């Protein structure tokens, strides 16, 4: 009986592990930041420019990778916008002087380097990226 179901168990474990370890995006912060978790609401406020500082008063430097899937899924799930609406939102902030958009990078490696160099930085990278020296934070509802 064990032999009969082991293939189903292996397939199920594979699907489960992809969901846990292979999501479309990850949130990373500079190593000096104490946060282990961020709420969805906080992420939304940071990446829409409504929260400019961490609790300790340090300026937040948000960054996002310009790779289609992680960026699109993050913008939809966390910010509730389409990519065009996100671009329009930040164009409005920029051309009315109300804010500066998150820094954008064409590769995870470049964004990871930015996070290293900026103590207050928080970034969105591909879910598959793995590096020894980045700190991934968990996203929680509240």
């Amino acid at each position, binding site marked *: 009986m064990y032999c009969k179901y082991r293939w189903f168990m292996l397939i199920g474990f594979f699907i489960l592990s992809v969901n846990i370890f292979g999501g479309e995006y990850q949130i990373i912060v500079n190593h000096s930041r104490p946060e282990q978790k961020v709420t969805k*609401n906080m992420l939304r*406020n940071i990446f829409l420019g*409504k*929260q*400019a*500082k961490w609790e300790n*008063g*340090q*300026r937040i430097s948000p960054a996002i990778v310009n790779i289609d899937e992680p960026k699109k899924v993050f913008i939809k799930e966390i910010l*509730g*916008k*389409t*990519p*065009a*609406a996100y671009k*329009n939102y930040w*164009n*409005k902030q*920029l*051309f*009315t*002087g*109300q804010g*500066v958009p998150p820094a954008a990078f064409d590769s995870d490696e470049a964004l990871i380097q930015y996070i290293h160099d900026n103590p*207050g930085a928080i970034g969105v990278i591909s879910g598959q990226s793995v590096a020894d020296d980045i700190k991934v934070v968990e996203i929680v509802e509240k």
Partner: protein
Amino acid sequence: MKRHVFKYAALAIFSIADFCIAQQDVRIHGFISQGYMKSTDNNYLLKSKDGCFEFNEAAVNMMAIVSDNAQIGVQFLARDFGEAGNHTVLLDWAYSDYNFNSSFGLRLGKIKIPLGLYNQGRDVDLLRTPILLPQSVYDESMRDFSLAILGIGTYGNLSLSSFGQIDYEIVGGTLSIPDSKSAYWNWVLTDLIDVFKGYSSYFDTHGSGFQVNQQKVSGKSVVGGSIQLETPLTGLTLKASKAFGKLNMNSILNLPVVTFNIDVIINQFNTYSMQYHYGNFSLTGEYHLHEYFTDISYKIPSMEHKLPRYYWESDGYYGQIGYRFSNWFETCMYYSEYFPDTNDREGKNKDVSYEGWQKDLSLTLRFDLTQRWLVKLEAHRMDGVALIRVDTDQSKERDWELFMLKTTFQF
């Protein structure tokens, strides 16, 4: 004195920016737009009957993060819109911003007034789908009244927990008037003289075809603000905004030499907005009420005449639907209605009834050819002429069309 203040402020801003450039904390952006407008039957906004290219804007801005709490920014804008602008480079906005926390920040400088969804960015074509904002709410002749103040502003974001969140903004200061000799003020003067026909035999006789020999418009105190609610329903935003203030207009006309003094005691704009986004679909609606009290006096050599204080209300509204089909193609349609006098929506007191309204059905196609370059095509079907203030002596057709083409490049 004002010139010196601006000179030293600009010097301070550029010195700080120079430092920030070295630290790579500065961003420079801009755009350039060129449009074309062609109307049937009536000249509208520009000399549009023959087709007109006097329809463009260019801007460059710089924003620099100075510290964990502070940032500074400045934008210069040059535009040409028929008789207005003429490519004069003006300071569009410029301020220093100090952010205490997410619920409270301060701005000091030249600040755009937060009226409706589009007032602050009304000169930036790439921020919206339509070329021409619905004039029922964003009347071009009222632009200078409602654009920016020199003063102080406060802003912030407040959480309402499961009821959503609020973004607020309040500004106060002196109305910043780009050019008191611009065509906008002539439009205002024309409207006011038109209103006072019937109050005075002088205006009955001389109320059209005048020229302005000299004009000075002084902005006085203005307060404005908005509250925007991001509701618990994802994608639904509600906004209420208001601005009110005073100004004085002193004009010397050519008929035979008249000094015309207008004190606008209270000039008040109220705009209520709703916007809903669901995926690539959007639905927008706004209502705008404009009310003012005026004291007008005019002086013919040796005699001064004062007219009774006048209260006037105009209003307008529009509804718009839009859909983005792909990364490069979006379309929207709006229907708008404007009434220059809420007590006379049928135009019974006008020379012709259709001067009492202007109804506009519009369709826009927007093509984002690259991340930085877009092209728009737009057509309008108009009923009424209430908003026609160019060539006021022209004979106006009730039903007419307007076509527009515009391209914008941003960097």
